[in-house]
């Protein structure tokens, strides 16, 4: 009985630790990715080198 109880506690502790590590890893990945995330509310900024000045267009003027 005592062994079973001890085993159950150990399992609970292990699961808690895994859960914590999982959260930590997720937070780390999200934290690292944040600076590279495109804000969909903002226009994409391009350098002039990326422009095709001779592309057909239908703008008047």
């Amino acid at each position: 009985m005592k062994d079973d109880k001890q085993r159950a506690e150990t399992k609970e502790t292990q699961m808690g630790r895994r859960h914590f590590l999982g959260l930590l890893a997720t937070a780390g990945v999200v934290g690292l990715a944040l600076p590279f995330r495109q804000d969909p509310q903002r226009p994409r900024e391009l350098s002039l080198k990326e422009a095709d000045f001779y592309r057909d267009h239908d703008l008047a003027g």
Partner: protein
Amino acid sequence: MSAVTCELCPRGCVIPEGGAGDCRIRVNLGGKLRATTYGRPSAIHIDPMEKKPLYHFHPGAPVFSIATAGCNLHCLNCQNWQLSQRGGEEMEQVYRADPPDLLKAAKKEGCKAIAYTYSDPIVFYEYVYDSGELAHREGLTNVFITAGYINRKPLRLLCNVLDAANVDLKAFDDGFYRRVTSATLQPVLDALVTMREEGVWIEVTNLLIPTLNDDLAMIRSMARWIRDELGEGTPLHFSRFHPQYRMRNLPPTPGRTLDRARKEAMDAGLQYVYVGNVMGHKGGSTYCPTDGTLLIGRAGFWITENNLTADDRCPTCNEKIPGVWQ
């Protein structure tokens, strides 16, 4: 923090802290007026000068043409509404292009002129001014494609850097301006006169919209005003309307309407009246007003022949043809 009043155009927007003017891009940041699209154009193309349209200014020259988002007019028939009726932050993309970057790119592509066009460049005034000043220092010219809804004082200053302008005179009727464009007529007429006084080469465009501004009596009045205030040698372009944006209920301008308008304006005394947006139309070429000699032949935006003499005269009768040709 206090509101600021934008004195650039006749709207005179009073902009609260953190707010934007009617054009969407001139904002009040900490009590100071700023243009959010400075150095951030959303459209950059190299077009022929004829596309602006400018027919008497460096014919055939490639023009480095730029625009940012925003406009101080809200025309129901705007062809460029996806650019003009948005703020800079609403665009899918913008280019990082401060004035020195623009000049560097224009020169690299062999362009001798920069056009501020597509939307109304009045709203990105400071960007035009700084780029224009730099362009002059580098030996390039500046062309301004506008509806001319601007106050006289800032326009006079801007004329220091402008070489040519095509002004879209949308109708010779204040009611049309109010109903269709959300602007008024008189400031546009004042702007045309100011540009003439400041020595900017001017061409005028009038987009003819069936039933709204194609009345021949109105066209006659407009042509007479241009003749008297700007000069009989001022080129006038009648342009064909195509249904779009919020004006899809009207048909394209019939060819005969364009022909009648051209005849009416020439009968009123204007010497160079063109028809635009119609491929292969006779009215797309330049003729000598004295003897009818074909001076510059055009097919669409392309020059097919140029018969002007080296000193810009008709090869037949020697009449001097107004314009900035070389």
